[in-house]
């Protein structure tokens, strides 16, 4: 683990408030995850990879954009590890970097349709940009 990765791991732990050591590796979080097929790393892997300090791989993974924030993994984890909080922390580590917004304002118009509620656009900006 490089020093940089170590710092990143500490940051993810601090801003998520998650204690990865509570995980008993049952896999229930990933079993219940509705985005499982659209993720490269799954909720239980976020827990073990953060514990090992492998943050950069997670930062480059599409999983951080396909988590639906449905909180199923948070509700159903028998050990209250709350993996989605790690996914959120990794995502904010990415978008807080200069120029790393995942959703840019000028990309929005072509995504709109007549029925799309404001809620969708506001949520996506909150999740994908700073």
């Amino acid at each position: 683990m490089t020093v940089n990765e170590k710092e990143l791991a500490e940051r993810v732990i601090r801003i998520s408030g998650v204690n990865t050591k509570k995980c008993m590796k049952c896999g229930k979080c990933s079993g219940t995850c509705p985005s499982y097929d659209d993720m490269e790393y799954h909720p239980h892997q976020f827990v073990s990879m953060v514990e090992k300090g492998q943050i950069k791989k997670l930062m480059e993974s599409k999983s951080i954009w396909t988590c639906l924030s449905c909180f199923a993994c948070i509700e159903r984890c028998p050990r209250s590890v709350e993996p989605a909080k790690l996914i959120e922390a990794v995502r904010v580590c990415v978008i807080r970097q200069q120029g790393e917004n995942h959703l840019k304002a000028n990309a929005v118009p072509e995504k709109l349709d007549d029925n799309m509620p404001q809620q969708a656009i506001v949520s996506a900006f909150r999740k994908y940009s700073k």
Partner: protein
Amino acid sequence: MTYSYYPGCTLKTKAKELDKYARASAEALGVTLEEIEDWQCCGAVYPLALDEIATKLSAVRALDSAKKEGRDLLTLCSACHHVIKRVNNDMLTNDDIRMKVNNYLKLDTDYVGETNVVHYLEMLRDTVGFDNIKAAVKNPLKGRKIAAYYGCLLLRPAKVMQFDNPENPTILEDFIKAIGATPVITGYRNECCGGYVALEDKSIPQKRANMILEEAMAKGADTVITACPLCLYNLETNSTIENKPAICYFTELLAEALGLK
């Protein structure tokens, strides 16, 4: 009974029916919704990161506004309810967030989580009562088979939302019975519709919405109800199945049953 009311952005634009029929029905049931002044968008997603402060301020402003009126704060959109309820919980339980928010807002008196946040459905259940709604119904929706789609935001995390049993909720089914219709219970009623990921990859909400609607159809539902504009959008616009059930806000059916529509 009067509540301070937080409608939120989407209820002023794409989800006007959710708001309009909620207000009319509440009035008919003896409940007044007094819209708070100068409310701001809640941000639509709860900021999970513990060091996010600025993104929680608009919720606290709304909470403080209701506190000043001495009333409970009533919400309707699932997302607004989720954000405001969770931020309120932070203000009540997280010393660091409470201190930073108050240092920033510099209110006359610190806000420390005093306001009660009540969802419209909780108001129907706990203040009006489903029996009283049943008694007020002029046009019972007899013969209609309605599937309740709860989605995620009202139910989870149950520890904070305290809305209903997160795995076996009953509030919407009780509502459906009160307006004279028959509830259709589906397994996917508390599984995600795909949410905001519609802006990242439409195929994800499309798969989710199709699954949810196919199950409701297989179980004979003619209508699916929701309290969330984003759920309604994904079910209605991003699903690709033919002859799907009608998808509408629960307040539309309430108004219909009360003879207001």
